[in-house]
């Protein structure tokens, strides 16, 4: 079982003929993702890794229905491509690019809300239903089926933690990368809700970081509405206030979004917070053992 996607999900790759698009199309196919088509304006009629390429999303969906689209589109053109996918009726969008302008992201989210579509990202590694379907750019080998749901604000750190789980032979149901930008589609709470109602997910790992109030909001939700155990790791304990650490979110401003406030909120919701990424598997086992 999994959330959002499964092995039946029909996936479109927008920007399939580019370097990133074609490489990850191959990777996703290897993982088992059901890719039904790609879009690259002006390249219609070609194939990439055996996948047919269309000129427009409308042409693609005319030929075969599509459930989800992953975008490998340069940031300045990502809004247009995302709006195209939404207009063509696609209900799950995975926005890989970073540096999408803030107001473009706001415009995309507004249309996604209107169309009842789920947007993962932007600036995300995507999401994976382990062993069934990967719509993203994460390294295939770490994502093996198992009982743990993972949701993360950052990419490589999430691989690090999933890597530790895998080393310990703990697999995952679904791993979702929320994306590192200020405006992203899914938030912790959205994904926690899904995990809570997914029978296959027994334990949840939340990978957060300093800045913003997403972890505090997640903690409040866990406290009020979750029965499943949650384990967390938070990055940024050593970060000085007022400096932006890469992500739009990773900045401690005006005393808000500190490491301490997040740990306190999570602990208050019964969530154990690991000191080091390598401690996560033990905490998961401990939580699952209860």
């Amino acid at each position, binding site marked *: 079982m999994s959330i959002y996607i499964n092995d039946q999900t029909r996936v479109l790759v927008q920007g399939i003929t580019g370097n*990133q698009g074609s490489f990850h199309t191959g990777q996703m196919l290897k993982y088992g993702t059901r890719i039904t088509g790609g879009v690259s304006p002006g390249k219609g009629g070609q194939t990439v890794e055996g996948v047919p390429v269309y000129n427009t999303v409308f042409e693609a969906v005319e030929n075969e229905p599509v459930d989800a689209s992953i975008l490998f589109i340069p*940031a*300045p053109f990502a809004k247009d491509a995302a709006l195209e996918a939404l207009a063509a009726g696609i209900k799950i969008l995975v926005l890989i690019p*970073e*540096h*999408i*302008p*803030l*107001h*473009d992201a*706001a*415009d995309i*989210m*507004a*249309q996604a*809300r*209107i169309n009842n579509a789920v947007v993962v990202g932007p600036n995300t*590694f995507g999401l994976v239903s382990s062993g069934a379907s990967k719509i993203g*750019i*994460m*390294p295939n080998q770490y994502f093996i089926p198992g009982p743990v749901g993972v949701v*993360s*604000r*950052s*990419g*490589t*750190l*999430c*691989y*690090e933690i999933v*890597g530790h789980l895998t080393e310990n032979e703990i697999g995952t149901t679904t791993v979702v990368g929320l994306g*590192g930008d*200020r*405006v992203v*589609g899914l*938030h912790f709470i959205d994904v926690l809700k899904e995990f809570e109602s997914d029978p296959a997910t027994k334990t949840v790992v939340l990978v957060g*970081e*300093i800045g913003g*109030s*997403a972890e505090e909001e997640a903690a409040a939700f866990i406290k009020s509405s979750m029965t499943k155990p949650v384990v967390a790791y938070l*990055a*940024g*304990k*050593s*970060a*000085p206030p007022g*400096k*932006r*650490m*890469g*992500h*739009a*979110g*990773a900045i401690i401003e*005006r*005393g808000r979004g500190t490491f301490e406030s997040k740990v306190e909120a999570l602990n208050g919701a019964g969530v154990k917070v690991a*000191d*080091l*990424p*390598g401690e996560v598997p033990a905490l998961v086992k401990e939580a699952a053992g209860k």
Partner: protein
Amino acid sequence: MKLYEYLGKELFARYDIPVPAGRVVESAEQAEEAAAELGEVVIKSQVLTGKRGKAGGIAFASSAGEARTEAERIFKMELGGFKAEKLLVEEKIQIEQEIYLALTVDGTAQKPVVLVSLDGGMDVEDVPEERMIRWPVDVTVGLQGFMVREICRQLGVSGDLQKEFIKLLPRLYRLFREMDAELAEINPLALTPGGLVAADAKVTIDDDALYRHKDLPRIREKTDLELQAEELDLAYVELDGDIAVMANGAGITMATLDMVQHYGGTPANFLDFGGGADVEKTSQSLELLLGTDPRVLLINIFGGITRCDVVAEAFSRVKESKGIDLPVSFRLVGTNEAEGRAILEKAGIKSFTSMEEAVSHAVDLLKQS
């Protein structure tokens, strides 16, 4: 990109948001001339730091001579590490009430949000939460008159001031959207006998959208290293410690710094060289780091979109061309791991697979050095 106050006010004027009459000056002589024209003036250092006023970067002058003296003084000051190249000399306005007004983007709501408080003039963090009205704006609707009327009702504002808000807010919203602002803040927004006037301007433009605003000057109030990093499109922050850190991804870079501290070391920087960099860019990132004269170098790569062989290749290239004589701790796993490890071995570099091992090794190296 934060805009200097005078640039923010130029934008305001372009969008018909009233600002005080003023001149931008580059010398005390020009400040004197401006004051001779404008009468009683306020002289404001054009630096990006928030606390100009408290630090003495703002002065009032009632004569041209006084304006010159004050300008001389302010030009000599260092504020937030920078000396002002320009001052803004403005007519002193008659303020009846100070209001806080800002537009920013609310990440949770995924929408622009209007922030208004009648407690203006003070630091925004000092405004009591319940005295601040927040109104998220649906971008498909835009900022409409009815929203301003409702905000005014919640503020307890009516009559002429409400009319002023109804004129002004949609203009600020247009600026905010069309100029790709992350923040457009007016604090204080001054109620004068002639209506509302923006007494200050804090406008931050979204770096990712700067390509759409070629007419805006590029502001570079940064250290040389930060500027170099910007040119390389790296996320780089200088810190005070000894171990130079380079990793791929903001989260894991932060986690690496945390772990350095956890094992008793101190990080010299935050450097996230992003995902999917090529050999050239990776080499340049390395060179930048080496230029900071750290005592130990810690590289932490979990390759996903980043390829281990590319990083290893870049490292051995830099090692060969520039010579890397400081102790290095290298962690390398993920995409093309075997190829990367082989390259490193050829260059005589041992590498770890575990982040914990690599970091604790780096701290050991520091202690030994």
